[in-house]
């Protein structure tokens, strides 16, 4: 089974890249490949000039400081038996940074920076709310001052009102830590708000990529179009054409032949069943899409 099959994208330093798609489209696998939790079977991952795939274990230890990870379940990510403060200090201990006094100070400061008041620093994870836990996870990830932060559905498990706060926190942290962020989510409105470039995945492949605004105003791949048309719109009375996709995403164990999306695509023709479309440029400014009929479908009403 290929969770991720032949994808290629890049992230500009200091930018925020959104990775969007339905569950099991392979977006989490991308994160795990980069982080070397499930190393890729082939290909290259170039981080600042170095190929992560061929990196030796010893070098990975240092690389760990550069790339960090926040994922969906903050309670699961934290050790239930350690206080919040101890968990934030732990990375410093692992990498032998500073003496105990300095470590304590840094941890306290960072916890305050993510919005956790001093009286909460000695608490245990189960004593905090969901939003607070995710802040702790962020603090723990950032204490090593990484350059790349991969966020995998960081707010999906939180209440909607808290989601906004955490996203705002992420924005602030991005500026103050000069981070490059990869933001994996199925929530398109969040991605539109937060990310400047975006990649849409379907069943292990990238179907469209480019600057976020460009993709939202002019989606070229049928899948992207369907996703965007389904975003709830706040103003009542707005008329929309919602594109409803038929069927369910097929299993990654036996993807359809040709273009993976063709069984659910309203435009499918015979060529879609036989050949996988090449990804091609569809506008200025690095906007790419993989569809045989990208020119015809392209221009929306």
């Amino acid at each position, binding site marked *: 089974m290929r969770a991720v099959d032949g994808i290629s994208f890049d992230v500009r330093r200091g930018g925020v890249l959104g990775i969007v798609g339905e569950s099991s489209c392979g977006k989490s696998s991308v994160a795990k490949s980069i982080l070397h939790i499930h190393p890729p079977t082939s290909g290259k991952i170039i981080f600042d000039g170095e190929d992560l795939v061929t990196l030796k274990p010893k070098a990975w230890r240092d690389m760990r400081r550069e790339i960090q990870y926040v994922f969906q379940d903050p309670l699961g990510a934290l050790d239930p038996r350690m206080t919040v403060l101890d968990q934030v200090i*732990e990375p410093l201990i692992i990498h032998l940074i500073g003496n105990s006094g300095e470590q304590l100070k840094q941890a306290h400061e960072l916890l305050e920076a993510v919005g956790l008041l001093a009286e909460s620093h000695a*608490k245990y994870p189960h004593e*905090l709310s969901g939003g607070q836990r995710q802040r702790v996870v962020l603090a723990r*990830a950032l204490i090593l001052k990484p350059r790349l932060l991969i966020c995998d559905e960081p707010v999906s*498990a939180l209440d909607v009102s808290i989601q906004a706060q955490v996203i705002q926190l992420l924005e602030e942290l991005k500026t103050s830590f000069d981070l490059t962020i990869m933001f994996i989510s199925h929530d398109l409105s969040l991605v539109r708000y937060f990310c400047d470039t975006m990649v849409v995945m379907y069943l292990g492949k990238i179907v469209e990529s480019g600057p976020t605004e460009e993709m939202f105003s002019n989606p070229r791949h049928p899948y992207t179009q369907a996703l965007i048309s389904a975003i709830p719109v706040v103003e009542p009375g707005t008329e929309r054409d919602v594109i409803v996709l038929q069927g369910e995403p097929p299993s990654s164990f036996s993807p359809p032949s040709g273009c993976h999306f063709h069984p659910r695509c309203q435009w499918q023709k015979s060529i879609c069943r036989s050949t996988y479309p090449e990804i091609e440029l569809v506008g200025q400014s690095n906007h790419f899409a993989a569809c045989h009929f990208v020119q015809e479908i392209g221009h929306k009403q």
Partner: protein
Amino acid sequence: MNDLPNPSKRKSWLDHLSGMPPSILISAIWIVFMILVAVLADVIAPYDYKHMDLLDRLRPPIWLENGVWSHPLGTDDLGRDVLSRIIFSIRISLFVALMGTFIGAVLGTSLGFAAAHFRGRVDDLIMVLIDFQAALPFLILALAVLAFFENSFLLFVLIMGIYGWERYARIVRGLALSARSHGYAVSMQVLGATPARIYLRHILPNVSSAIIVNMTLNFPETILVETSLSFLGLGIQPPLTSLGNMVGFGRDYLLTAWWIVVLPSMVIFVTSLAFSLLGDWLRDELDPTLRGN
């Protein structure tokens, strides 16, 4: 989903102690008493347990006719003081049970971790060993090993160590597997921790309460197994003495000197009961979700 923080649910030591029902308190006191006897055996026993007084054999205990204060619990068929022998038996039995439980816990936990960490073939192998151990009644296994090898004290303690390791292994393996798939093992890996650190500093503490719970179950059972084997003459060998030993050798004197059998039996009964009651209570206190077993 509720976004409010939960109040702290951890109970302090004092809360635990003050909630003890009287039967549990008595059990705890008895166990402490047994431990003291075991530790202070050399000091409090009036005689050496091997010391034979052939002119004073089968003397009854003090509350019967012919009892004397120099042998308050009487003597056995070789003139050895029953009280002293019981005292030293308590020490030996508790020591063997403790070593056995400890060895079993370390062995089982290590194998459980190994199975969870390496998965694949190693996991399969360990699971097969666990199945094997669970498939044979331990007594039979122990007897088989004792038949083939000379029974030495060391061998016997090792055999006691093997008793119940598979329960630790199963529990630890399950917990470690779920801990691994849980966020924090992955998070620690991403943060740069070595597997050793992850197991020792993170997974082990979270697994420890289950291990301790299992130890409280294992310990009294080990005492009973050791006692049974000693009774059969295949456990602790003379000149060393054990409660089971005493009962076994005293069988022939049931009519003439019943105290040789009854007194050690009572100690076995009360001690085992005390451990069972205390263990049950401890399990409820430590983890109410395990109740009902």
